[in-house]
C-alpha cells in the first residue's frame, strides 16, 4: 500500500479476464506492490481513462501477489472493466474497511447467504472458512441467483456442495433461459433458509447480495430466531475516497468505507435508508 499518498493507485497487470455470466466477469490481476487484504475488505480499482470504483476481492486473501475481483457491468467504469484484456494495466488502491471478523465466528455455527454478485466477497470468505472448517461447529451456505445462466462460480459452488464439512443449497429465482441442466432448487434464496438445522439463537449469519435480497433475507433470519447482533451485512454505498474523508458513503454516524463495509445488523437497523 502506498503509505504516503492515499490517492495513488498501485500499478497492476491484468492476468486474465473470465466471463462468469452474461453480465459478470472476473478480473485476475497482479499488483506490482504487495497488497495484503483481509477477507471482506475492499479495494479501489482504477481503469486508466475511465475512473475508479470499489470492489471487494473475491480471491484468496493469503495469495499475496495475485488478486481477483468479480464485477457486474452497471456503469461506465464497470463497462471498461468488462472490456479489459490480458496484459493491460490498471491500478489498485487499498485495502480499505473492516472486513469480516472471522476470529469471532470460530467455534460457532455459521450460515452464509449469498445473492447474485454478492457471491464475490463471499467466495473470498469461503476460502478462509474452508481453511479453518474444523474450527466451526456447523457450516451452511445458501446461494441464490436470478436464473441458471446468471449463476456465479458454477464450478466452485458445485465443489462446495460435494464437501462433507458444509451443508450447501443453491437456488435460482426462475428457470428462465436455463438449458435444463440446473440441478438446484427453484425459488428465492429466502425460501431455502427454512428447515436449516442450526442453533439460531447463537448462530452467526453472513449475508451479501443486492440491497433487496439483503433486506428480505435479514427479515427472514430474524423471524427464524437469529439475533440482530449475529447478522453480518455487507453494505453498498458510493465509496469514492475509501479513507473516510470524501463524505459519500455515510450511513447514520458511519462511513461505510471506514466503519464497514461489513456491519452487524443491530448497528445499522435504526437508520431509515439502510436498504436504499
Amino acid at each position, binding site marked *: 500500500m*502506498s503509505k*504516503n*499518498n*492515499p*490517492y*495513488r*493507485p*498501485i*500499478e497492476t497487470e491484468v492476468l486474465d479476464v473470465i466471463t462468469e455470466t452474461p453480465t459478470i466477469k472476473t478480473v485476475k490481476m497482479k499488483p*506490482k506492490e504487495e497488497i495484503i487484504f483481509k477477507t471482506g475488505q475492499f479495494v479501489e480499482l*482504477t481503469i*486508466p*481513462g*475511465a*475512473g*475508479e*470504483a470499489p470492489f471487494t476481492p473475491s480471491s484468496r486473501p493469503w495469495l499475496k501477489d495475485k488478486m481477483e475481483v468479480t464485477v*457486474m457491468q*452497471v*456503469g461506465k*467504469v*464497470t463497462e471498461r472493466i468488462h472490456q479489459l484484456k490480458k496484459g493491460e494495466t490498471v*491500478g489498485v488502491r487499498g485495502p480499505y474497511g473492516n472486513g469480516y471478523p472471522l476470529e469471532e465466528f470460530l467455534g460457532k455455527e455459521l450460515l452464509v447467504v449469498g445473492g447474485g454478485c454478492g457471491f464475490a466477497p463471499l467466495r473470498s470468505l469461503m476460502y478462509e472458512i474452508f481453511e479453518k472448517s474444523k474450527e466451526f461447529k456447523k457450516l451452511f451456505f445458501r446461494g441464490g441467483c436470478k436464473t441458471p445462466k446468471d449463476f456465479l462460480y458454477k464450478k466452485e459452488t458445485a465443489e462446495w456442495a460435494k464437501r462433507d464439512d458444509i451443508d450447501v443449497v443453491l437456488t435460482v429465482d426462475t428457470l428462465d433461459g436455463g438449458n435444463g441442466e440446473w440441478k438446484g432448487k427453484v425459488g428465492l434464496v429466502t425460501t431455502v433458509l427454512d428447515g436449516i438445522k442450526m442453533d439460531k439463537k447463537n448462530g452467526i449469519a453472513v449475508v451479501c447480495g*443486492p*440491497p433487496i435480497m439483503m433486506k428480505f433475507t435479514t427479515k427472514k433470519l430474524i423471524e427464524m430466531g437469529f439475533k440482530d447482533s449475529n447478522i453480518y451485512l455487507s453494505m*453498498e*454505498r*458510493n465509496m*469514492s*475516497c475509501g*479513507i*473516510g*474523508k*470524501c*463524505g*459519500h*458513503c*455515510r*450511513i*447514520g*454516524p458511519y462511513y461505510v468505507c*471506514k466503519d464497514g463495509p461489513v456491519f452487524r445488523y443491530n448497528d445499522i437497523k435504526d437508520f*431509515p*435508508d439502510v436498504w*436504499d
Partner: protein
Amino acid sequence: MLYITKNNLSNLLEIIQKDYDIFVPVKRENNRFYKRYDPSMKFSEDEKLADENTIVLGEVRAFEPLKVFYNRAREIVADGFKAELPRTNPKPFCIVGAKACDLKGFKIQDFVFKEGDFQDPFYIEARENNLIISADCTCALDTCFCSTVDVKPYPEKDFDLNLSQVSGGFIAQAGSQKGQALIDKNPSLFGEAMDRAVAEMEEQRKRVTADVRKNIRQNSIPSQDKYEGIIQKNYDSPIWDEEAKTCVECGACNTICPTCHCFLLYDQMSEERMERLRVWDSCMIKDFAKVAAGVNPRPWLWMRLRNRFEKKFDFFPKQSGIYACTGCGRCITACPAKIDIRKVLQRLVKDVQKQPV
C-alpha cells in the same frame, strides 16, 4: 502588548514575502476577497471606501472560506502510478486577515484530513508550511452569528500572529513559535502598545461582540447548548420538506461553507496522462450518494437538506466533538433560494422544545 504601525506591517509583509506567497483581503464592492499581495498595496485608511488595491484587515471575514487555500477546489492528488506526490504548492503561503470564524473552520477540516487511519498529505503540507496572520473583526454583518457556535469575533488561539486594528496600526499578539519568531527577528518593527491602544482594542472587541449578540437576539438564533438531539428528534419532521422547497441544488451552500469538505476523486479521461483530481463535491446534488447500479439513499431534496444539517449538527459532532458550523453566515448570503440556517436552527430547536418530555 506589542504595537505595529501600518507602515511597519508593510515592511513585515515584504520580509515575509521572501519565504511565502502572501494573500491579503481587498475590497470589491461590499465584499472582501483574498488577493496576492504585492508591495504596492497599502493598508486602507477608510475601509468603507477601500478598493481592490488596498488591504482591509478589519471588517469581517472574506467572501471565500479559507479552504480555498488548503483543500482546494480542484487539486491533482495523483500522477499516474508515480510514488512521488504531485507538486502543487511550490511555495508556502501566508494568509493575512483570517477571522476567528475562519480559524474554527480549520478545526473541522483538520479533523477530516489530518486525523484517522489515513491522512491527506496535500492538506497536511499546506497546513504545516503556512503562516496565518489573523485579525479581529471590527464590525459584524447582519448575517454574523458566530457566538451561537462558541466563536468570538476576535481570534484567541490557532494563529501564528493576530492583529487587532486600532488607530494608526495594530496590536500584535503571537500565537505560535512561528509567530513569535516573526516578532523576535524583526524587533524594530514592533513597539510597546500604549494603554490607549489596548483600551481601544478592548472597546472594539466588546462592541463587535455586542453587535453579534444583537443579531442573534433579533433573529432568535438558538445557541449550541440547545443543539443536542435536534436532528434526531426532528428526523421525520415536515421542516425539511418545507425548507427545501425553494432549493435549486446549486451547491453554493457547500462550496462557500468553511466546514464542508466532501470531494470526489475524478480521473482525467486521458489514458496517456493519468491524473487524479480531488474535486469539491456537494451533498445537495442528487447523485451525490448514488451508487453505480442506480440505488440512491437520498433521492429527495429534503433528505439531502436534512443530510446537510445532520453533518453540521449531528453525526459530525458525534465523531469529532465539534459542531460543524462557524457562524460565518456565508451560506445565508450565498443561497439563491434564501434557505437560512438561522431559521432552520430556530425551527429545529423550537420543535424539540414543543415535544412532550
